[in-house]
């Protein structure tokens, strides 16, 4: 069976954000050309094994590429006509989405945009080191819609130092007013090797877990009332707007990942590419053979992040045993602690495992329960 999901990493950014830990590099036009031909080369190596239902161009900032290159990129990797994938997402930042580029993306088959808006509060944007303003976000939204994108995601960030509950509420109100169909709300994390991590380490930035919890709950409540489903820990969507590509990760499906720093998981092997070298090339630096036990544990940990949870029928079909068999004690403990609930599978004969509201706030704690000695 061919692989249905493809992730493509474009590492260029006009500016490196102080909290970003992804594989990123500042823009230089000459490097981009070489990068693009290397990327297309890597793609050709897997094309025969691919029948994409979803393609995701992430980064970095794919829209940092010039229009001509965006054209070439999409033309090369996104099939058209009856083989056209059902979802093609491109990440962009508000400042780099010009009408020309938006149209180029549509032309190339993209049907979903993920915009790194982060906040509608200028103070928060400043803390995050983002150069765009609310006006620029609105311009980008206008551009996207004009080009024909109705599937739009905004990335939003909470738990930013200095951000108040009122500021977060105003940002949520702003996105509701603009009727954005998909929202990713991320708590700011201090990843190692980022400017923020260093600032935190020397005490210049601090975290407030209690505030984060309030903001997390506020997003769930406000967006829920407006008809959004909190279909994964950090993701909220109006019905029909869920990201098919991201759901594939959480459901444990196979995906290819190409480009510097990209990760793919194909038939039990997870491979990881190294960073972009000085000559704009990269290579695979890691291969991990995933045992069925590891995959089963990951399936639980990731599946429980989603609102749909983990159904035991599908789980057994894939792994040959029921979650309640291997993790009987763990499941009981999680239920006793009020983190996990059991319900009947829709239409199926089996049980469905889901996290409770409280469990969703403690998803990482719950995940630990499913880790075994492999």
């Amino acid at each position, binding site marked *: 069976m061919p692989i249905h999901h493809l*992730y493509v990493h474009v590492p260029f950014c006009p500016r490196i954000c102080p909290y970003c830990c*992804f594989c990123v590099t500042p823009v230089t036009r000459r490097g981009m050309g070489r990068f693009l031909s290397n990327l297309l080369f890597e793609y050709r190596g897997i094309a025969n094994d691919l029948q994409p239902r979803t393609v995701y161009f992430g980064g970095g900032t794919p829209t940092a590429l010039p229009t001509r290159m965006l054209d070439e990129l999409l033309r090369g990797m996104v099939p058209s006509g009856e083989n056209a994938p059902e979802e093609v997402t491109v990440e962009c930042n508000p400042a780099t989405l010009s009408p020309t580029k938006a149209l180029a993306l549509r032309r190339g088959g993209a049907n979903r945009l993920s915009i790194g808006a982060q906040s509608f509060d200028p103070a928060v944007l400043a803390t995050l080191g983002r150069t765009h303003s609310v006006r620029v976000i609105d311009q980008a939204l206008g551009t996207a819609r004009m080009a024909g994108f109705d599937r739009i995601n905004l990335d939003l960030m909470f738990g930013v130092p200095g951000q108040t509950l009122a500021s977060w509420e105003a940002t949520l109100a702003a996105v509701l007013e603009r009727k954005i169909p998909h929202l990713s709300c*991320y*708590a*700011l*994390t201090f990843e190692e090797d980022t400017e923020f991590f260093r600032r935190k380490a020397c005490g210049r930035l601090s975290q407030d*877990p*209690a505030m*984060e*919890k309030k903001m*997390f709950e506020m997003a769930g409540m406000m967006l829920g009332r407006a008809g959004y489903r909190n279909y994964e*820990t*950090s993701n909220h969507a109006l019905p029909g707007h869920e990201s098919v590509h*991201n759901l594939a*990760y*959480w459901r444990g499906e196979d*995906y290819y*990942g190409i480009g510097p*720093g*990209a*990760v*793919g*998981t194909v038939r039990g092997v*997870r491979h*990881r590419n190294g960073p972009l070298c000085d000559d704009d090339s990269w290579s695979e630096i890691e291969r*991990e053979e995933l045992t069925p036990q*590891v995959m089963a*544990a*990951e399936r639980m*940990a*990731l599946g429980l*992040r989603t609102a749909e949870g983990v159904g035991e029928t599908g789980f057994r079909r894939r792994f040959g045993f029921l979650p309640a068999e291997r993790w009987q004690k763990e499941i009981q*403990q999680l239920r*006793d*602690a*009020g*983190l996990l609930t059991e319900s009947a599978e829709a239409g199926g004969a089996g049980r469905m495992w889901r996290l409770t509201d409280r469990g*969703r*706030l*403690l*998803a*990482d*704690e719950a*995940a*630990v329960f499913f*880790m*075994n000695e492999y």
Partner: protein
Amino acid sequence: MDTQHIRNFSIIAHIDHGKTTLSDRLLQLTGTIEQRQMRDQLLDGMDLERERGITIKAHPVRMNYRSEDGKDYQLNLIDTPGHVDFSYEVSRSLAACDGALLLVDASQGVEAQTVANLHLAAKQNLVIIPVINKIDLPNADVASCVQQIEDILAIPRDEIIKASGKSGEGVKDILEAVVRRLPAPRQTSSESLRALTFDSMFDTFRGVVIHVRVFEGEIRPGVIIRLMASGNDYEVKEVGCFKPEPVKQEYLGTGEVGYVIANIKSTSDIKIGETVTLARRPAAEPLPGFQQVRPMVFSGIYPIDTSNYEQLKACMARLQLNDSAFVYQHETSVALGFGFRCGFLGLLHMEIIQERLRREYQQDIIATYPSVIYRVKKTNGEELEVDNPVHLPDPSVIECIEEPVVRAFIMIPNQQIGDIMSLIMDRRGNCSHTETLDNRRVMLTCELPLNEILVDFNDKLKSISRGYGSMDYEPVGYVQSDQVKLDILVNGEPVDAFSCIVHRTKAESRGRTLALRLREVIPMQLFRVAIQAAIGGKIIARETVKAMGKNVTAKCYGGDITRKRKLWEKQKEGKKRMKAVGTVNIPQEAFIEVLKTN
């Protein structure tokens, strides 16, 4: 060799006064070991010994020495364990000698242990050669050491040898003094055999190796020996001496020191202080001074992972092979599962065993709060000994409780006398005697409950006196005392490993501190954790560990999975190292934290 040319001696000293270094120097000077074989602290075989600078097991070493009188002598150096916990072993080692070198550090002066050791040596009627060691140190104060030896130990100054184990200065004088001043072993005409067992160790290939001093007769391979206290007989396979490696000998004659290998399976079959005689012609009387060693301090030792119980059991058995003073028996704790109740000679002994289990045997263990043996009289007249708080009967049936008391000798600088006095008072002790030693130090003699010095008394003493204080103690008996059991409840369940028996006046403050401390070390869990301290069912303190609020990674996409999984796996590992008590995970630190009293 005829007894006239044998000298048996040991070196007694306070910890760190350079005993082992001097021993090594003696071995070198007599050519027992060559320069190139020298390794620092040769006699301290165990890593732990070398690291802590203390000698736990005694090794007798034979040296051949040609004296200035032109004659050849056999010198047997019997190294003694240098700590109060092992005072019985020290006394048996000393009993094997005819004299002793008393070592005093030139920069430290006479210490509490120096006095205690001298007393032990005097009890054995040993001839003492006083040696001021480390005279090459820049801060050596030889003159005041001489004064102290004269004043405190009542030894004339003209007998004192000044030496340095490090530089070798004066070491020759020591050897000459050993030959000239120490008496030769007594020559007897007995037909039978009497030899004192002063140590034993276990060799994987050869079984138990006993260390003996022959007082009468001789011992050869092939004879059947009898241990007089146990009455068991064994055939001798080999005899020899240590140089310092074992060297086979034809026989061990009167006055000689060496080793005997017989068919003894375990060190628990041979008690230190046993008299070895011949089965065919047994001696009429054993040598004096044999005692059954009784442990003074008890503590539970449990595997962190209950499935490692059998493994731990095997390690305990192996430890005991080499250390018959260490006793253990199976015990079950509600909180900790299967484990062992262990008895130790004292605090250092306890620490050493626990360290060896952790380091040499790589066991992940939890040790519970140490306890002394309480004597409990019940209202129905029954009397029992309690070494584990769990076994303390209900207060309603207790008539009275007695606790063991020790007499402690504490040597401290003058300036800190006030602080030390209040420490002693705080530990329910009283000072019976204060003696001025010289113009800067005093020696306090005081009585203290043993359980008050179990955990951190010595550390406190050291910190108050900035390291200059030293102490030693001996048991003096039991006194009645108002003791209660303090329980700690975690989410309503008593955790027996946290229970302790304390004096009523201290129970409440200890309960409060303990609850507070546990709150700090027990990490947040999925639910709220209540920590309560209770005395006889009455809650006296309560602390709460809040439930965890939020722990969820914001981004978890294709590229994040492996990294996240590794993090979760690591957390799982961390959890496994915690002890699950009911539904609460208690980290190891909590069990260690309980051991600290304030």
